[in-house]
C-alpha cells in the first residue's frame, strides 16, 4: 500500500483547540475520507469526526469535501485538508 503525507491545517479557533496550526499526517493513498478523518482524530486529539458538520467543515485542497464522491479522492503527497469553522462573511 502506497503511503502519502498530507498536511492538516486548523483555521481560526480550531488552532487553539487542536493546539497545532498544521501537522503532517501519513495515510494510505487510497484511504477513504472517513478513514483519514479517524487518523486525524488519533494524531491530533481534535475530534474532527464529532465536530464535522456541527462546528466545522473541511476543505480538501481548497474545495469543499461535499464536492467529492468518497471513492473519487486519491490523495497525493502534499495535499491539504483545512479544518474551517462554519462561519459567515466578514
Amino acid at each position, binding site marked *: 500500500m502506497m503511503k502519502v503525507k498530507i498536511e492538516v491545517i486548523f483555521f481560526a479557533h480550531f488552532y487553539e483547540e487542536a493546539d497545532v496550526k498544521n501537522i503532517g499526517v501519513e495515510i494510505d493513498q487510497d484511504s477513504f475520507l472517513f478513514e483519514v478523518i479517524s487518523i486525524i482524530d488519533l494524531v491530533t486529539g481534535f475530534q474532527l469526526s464529532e465536530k464535522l458538520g456541527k462546528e466545522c467543515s473541511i476543505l480538501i485542497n481548497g*474545495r469543499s469535501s461535499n464536492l467529492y464522491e468518497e471513492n473519487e479522492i486519491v490523495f497525493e503527497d502534499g495535499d491539504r485538508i483545512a479544518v474551517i*469553522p462554519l462561519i459567515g462573511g466578514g
Partner: protein
Amino acid sequence: VKNLSNIPGYAGKILTVDLTKKKVSIEELPLGLVKGYIGGKGFAARILYDNIAAGCDPLSPDNVVVLAVGPLTGTLAPTGCRSIMATKSPLTNIWLDSNCGGVFGPEMKAAGFDLILIKGRSEKPVNLIIQDNDVSIVAAESYWGLDTLSVSDKLKKHYGDDYKVACIGQAGEKMVLISSVQAEGRSFGRGGIGAVFGSKNLKAIAIRGTGSITISNYEEFIKECKEAYNEIAINTDTGGARNKYGTSSIYSSIKEAGVLPIRNFQGGSYQGLAEIDEHSLKRELYEQDRACFACPIACSKYSKVKRGPYKGKHVEGPEFENFWSFGAQCGNSELGSIVYAEYLSDFYGIDAISTGNVIGFVMECYEKGIITKDLLGFEAGFGNHEALIRLVELIGEKKGFGEIIGQGVKRLAEHIGSGSDFFAMHVKGLELPAYDPRGAVGMGLAYATSDRGGCHLRAWPVGAEVLAHSGRIDPREAEFKAELVKTDQDWFNVVNSLGLCLFSTYALGHNQLTDLVSALTGIEEFRSGAKLLKIGEKIYNLTRLFNIREGITALDDKLPPRLMEETLTQGPAKGVKIPLKAMLEDYYLVRGWDDNGFPTSEKLRQLDLNDESKN
C-alpha cells in the same frame, strides 16, 4: 415617558429638513409605510423613489438624503443597532444605501425619529443639531476643514457627551466621490455619501434622544430576545470565531478556497502572504473587543500597532474588508500600515474598501508603466506601504494626483486610458470588495445584480459555495446560484429594514427574526418569514426600478473584463471561467424580470407595486 408612538416598535415620527429654506418639519409616521416597507432600507427605497427625479445630479440640491432605522433598532433585540443612509450616489449615479452599526441609529430612534429626510443645500456650512423634538440648523464655519474625529470631539464638547455624531471630514467637504460619513467609530462607507453631505454644506448631524417606544407583547418580546441571545452564544460563528478574530475570522478559509483577491485580482502571491492570517492579527494588533449597541458578538476590535514603523498607530478595526483592501489588494504585508491606512480613512472620511481597491489599481498601473513616478512624485509598486499611506493622504486631502484617484477606479481608468479599464475592478462604478468571484462564481452574480454596484452585502453566496458543510453547491458552476442570490438579496433587505446586523443571521433564522418583530410590533403583515420575504422582494424590485429610471439595463449587469477574460493560474480557482450569462438568465427568470432586466408588470402587481407598473 416621551415619544410614545401609536405604532408599537416605532418612534413614530418623520423629520424633514430643508437646508435651502432652513426649515424643519415633523410629521407622524404613516402606518401604510410601516406595513409596506418595515423600516430602514425599505423606508429609504420608498422615499427616495418618490423624492428623486430621474437624471438628478447627485451633487445638486435636488438630491436628497434619507436616514432611517428599523423597528428592532434601539431595542433589546441582539444586534439591533443598525441605521441606513440612502441617496443617489455621485460615484455610480444609481441607488445607494449605506448601513452603519454602532450607536447612532439607536440614538436617532430615541430622539423620536424613524426617518430623517434631508433636502436642498445650505449656502454656508451647517450642522444639524437634534435633541428629541428640538431640531436646529446651526452655522458650522468653525467646523469646516476639520477631520471627522475632531468634529465629533468638538460637537460633544459643545453640546455634551451624550450626543451621537455622524459627520464628514475634509474628503466629503471637497466632494471626493469615494468619501464616507463617519458615525461614532463606524462608517456609512460606500458610494460617496460624504460627497452628498459636502454638496449640501452639511458637516455633521449631532443627535440626542431620551424617548422610548411601546412594545406590543412585552413578555413575549423579552422571551424571544433571550432565546435569540442564546442562539447567538452557542453558534460557532457568532459565539466563537467572530468574537475571537473579528470579521477576519474568515481570512484563512477565504484564502484557502482561492476566493481572496490578490494584487488587484491578478492572483498569485506576494512576500508575506503566507505568514499573515487571523492569528497574526490577533497576536500583533488586537487590544480590546468593541461592540455595537445591543450586540453580544463584539466582532469589532480595537487595534494598536506594537512594533515596527507604525508603532503606536491605532484604529477601531481593521475589519476583514480593510485587512484585504490595504493588504492583499495592494500586495502589502506590513500590518501596521493597514492599521494606519484605516485610521486615515476614518480621519478624512473616505471609504476604506474603495480606497484600498483604487490604490491596488494605481499600483498595478505603476508596475505596468501607465502611471509613472513623475506623475505621482514617488514610487508606488505593489507592497510599497509608504506609497499606500501617501496615496490615502492624497485622496483624503484631494491633493495632487489624489484628486483623480478619489473619483474612484472607473473614472480613474477613463482618465488614464491605456486599456486600464480591463483591470478597473468595479461594478456599475462601485469598487469591488474582498471576494474573487472566480473562486465562488455565485459572488459574480451577486456583484453583477447588486442594487448599488460592486458590493458583498446584498447577497453572499460564498458561504454556501465554499464554506458550508451541507449541500453540494459547486463554486465553479452556475447551478443554484440564481436562487441563492435572489433569496439572500430579498432576506438581507428584510434584515436591513428591521435594523439588525447581517451577522445576526448566521445564528438567527427567518422564524426567529419573525418572532422578534411580531412580538415587538404585533403587525399582522410581519407574522411570517414568507410575508417578510415578500416585502424584501418588493424593496429589491423598487431599488431596481430606481436604477432603471436612471438608465440601468441588463447590459450593466456585468463584471470587469479581467474577471470574465482572465483566469487564475493556480489554486482551487485555477482556470475557472465565470458563467455569468447562464447565471443571469436563471436570475432574471427567478426574479420575474424580462431579458432587459426589467421587472415584468405581472411581477410588480404581485408585489403591490401597481403604480410603478404603469411607468
